[in-house]
């Protein structure tokens, strides 16, 4: 069938893209001076030894004396078998360090994604249905506020007001509470709130504009002439076509915020998630962990784009799979 072939082709393409990224990463690393080798040379010189021998020794130790293609094969094999090396700073394998980060990141990312998926399109639809009324202006204003204000700054303000002054929410993230507990929901409320307001802005804007177009479409008149109630007409006849262009916005918006703002949010709220792990690795020059985190984010972006494409194609029945 056309669809199955299209999905297969698109997936293979995504795999190819990830492979190209891995290759480019390897080349950049191979070209960059290795800090541990120059360190060894400096140390040898200070201790009165021969820097050249020390460098050679160090290279041999790290397998850098091998020809480039052997090192490349090694690297690629390592990446795809999830042997991402050892994090010196955290004294544990890179994959384990990343897993620990994902564990905390998922706890706020999943509710945030679900809420964005529900609230964003609905607020946009509501705005379109009440276009240019005070309700529309209120919803638009709210969405633009969330979109415009930097997430980390908004987070700090909320922490100061509701955490420090009013003391409604804890300031310090507590890793010891169970995942599915009220206490966890309580302490994750502010970060999730900040992220949702940040991401629904763009989603709501696209949803509002697209549904504004569809609510005046001829098929809405047909629906009314059939005796369809306005609520049903909005829920089925406007929402469904709106989801086609909106699906790409939602995926890309979630990706942008996940890769960018969540790092800042984790630092502001002290959540030891993926962003925090990456940040610490950068500060401590933990090359393996930085590389691992970068690859992970890249893979997420590639998969996100794949999902975006597939969802778009599946949602719009007019797109023909045979032409691709």
């Amino acid at each position: 069938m056309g669809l199955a072939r299209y999905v297969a082709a698109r997936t293979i393409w995504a795999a190819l893209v990830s492979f190209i990224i891995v290759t480019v990463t390897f080349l950049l690393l191979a070209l960059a001076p290795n800090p541990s080798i120059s360190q060894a040379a400096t140390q040898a010189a200070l201790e009165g030894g021969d820097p050249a021998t020390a460098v050679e020794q160090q290279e041999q130790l790290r397998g850098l004396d091998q020809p480039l293609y052997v090192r490349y094969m090694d690297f690629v094999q390592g990446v795809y078998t999830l042997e991402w090396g050892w994090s010196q700073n955290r004294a544990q394998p890179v994959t384990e360090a990343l897993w620990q980060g994902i564990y905390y990141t998922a706890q706020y990312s999943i509710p945030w994604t679900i809420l964005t998926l529900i609230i964003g399109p609905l607020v946009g639809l509501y705005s379109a249905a009440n276009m240019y009324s005070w309700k529309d202006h209120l919803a638009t204003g709210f969405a633009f506020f969330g979109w415009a204000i930097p997430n980390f700054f908004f987070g700090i303000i909320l922490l100061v007001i509701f955490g420090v002054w009013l003391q409604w929410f804890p300031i310090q993230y507590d890793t010891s509470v169970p995942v599915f507990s009220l206490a966890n929901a309580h302490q994750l409320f502010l970060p999730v709130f900040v992220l949702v307001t940040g991401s629904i802005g763009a989603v709501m804007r696209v949803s509002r504009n697209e549904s504004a177009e569809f609510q005046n479409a001829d098929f809405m008149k047909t629906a009314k002439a059939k005796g369809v109630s306005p609520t049903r007409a909005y829920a089925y006849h406007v929402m469904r076509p709106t989801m086609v262009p909106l699906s790409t916005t939602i995926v890309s918006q979630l990706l942008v915020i996940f890769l960018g703002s969540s790092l800042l949010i984790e630092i502001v709220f002290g959540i030891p998630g993926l962003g925090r792990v990456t940040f610490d690795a950068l500060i401590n020059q933990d090359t393996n962990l930085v590389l691992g985190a970068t690859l992970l984010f890249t893979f997420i972006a590639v998969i996100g784009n794949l999902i975006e494409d597939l969802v778009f194609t599946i949602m719009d029945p007019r797109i023909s799979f045979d032409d691709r």
Partner: protein
Amino acid sequence: MAIEHDAAETIFDENDVVTTDDVPLLEVEGLTTSFKTEAGRLVAVDDIDFTVDSGETVCIVGESGSGKTVATESVTQLIKQPPGTIGGTVRFKGQDLMDLTEKQLRSIRGNEIAHIFQNPQEAMNHCYTVGWQITEAIQIHEDVSKKVARARGVDLLDRVGIDNASARFDDYPHEFSGGQKQRIMIAMALVGNPDLLLADEPTTALDVTVQAQILRLLNDLQEEFGMGILFVTHDLGVVAEIADRVIVMYSGKIMESADVFEIFERPAHPYTQALMKCLPERGGDQRGGIPGRLPNPTNPPDGCRFAARCEHATEDCEVGEQPPQIEIAPDHHVSCIYYGEGYDSSVVRDAELEAANAPETEANR
């Protein structure tokens, strides 16, 4: 198209207010539809009266912007209110639709009064299969299972001439041609066995051969179901083919209304004559259309709306209101001062057109 009162009577619901023969199926009086615009109040339909009987086809003709579409969409209040405002009375089987709540209107729309529209390409939602859209129409008005609705939908598609209907039930609108889409729209309109079908230029977007097929289909269905049809068109050729009675609209007003033979054989209003002169096959020589433009709808002129473009217009034509509907023959009304007392109506008659049309129309029947 014979008027079959008996057949029409049987499909009337029991809860109808009046079901006697002398009450028209649809009786519109003083219908006025206006819109709030930035340029002021736009009156699209201005105080018009007309009736449609069961089994009868009434055509509203006029050039673009004359208010034909707004008039039909005002019947079941498809017009968005606001910005639109609909006034007057619209009695359907004796019941004034203006008195009904939105919920009551919804139970009539698509059930007793159905619509088909000009552009079948856009009239269906591209994200749903045609079957889904027909099933939706059925299930809104009747509490039936999906299976039953599907079977009914397939039957209807089959009835309107979609080949291999059960296999094509789950296809999307874009997989059908324009003519097939209009057939599907007609099938969707038939789900409630409507008593009245409002057809808004249903053949305008289709090519001529398909147009003829759709008109034939509507004709067959009318004979089968005995429904009244209010048909909007700007094509006098279509009018000659399907109409029982004709209403000529211009700038929101009715200029002339009569039996279809009468109007082709004795076009009385200068506007009706001008429309006919645009038809080369009917002895017309006005290939470039009628000179001049429609008046500004937010600020219509005094007197007859057509006066500015009328070759016979005098000073009297540009004062007061639109002239009253004068009955010049049984059931033939004209809104032109020349037919009033103290004027010579022979001035505006067009002998050439009348001679050219008399045999033509007979041949068309």
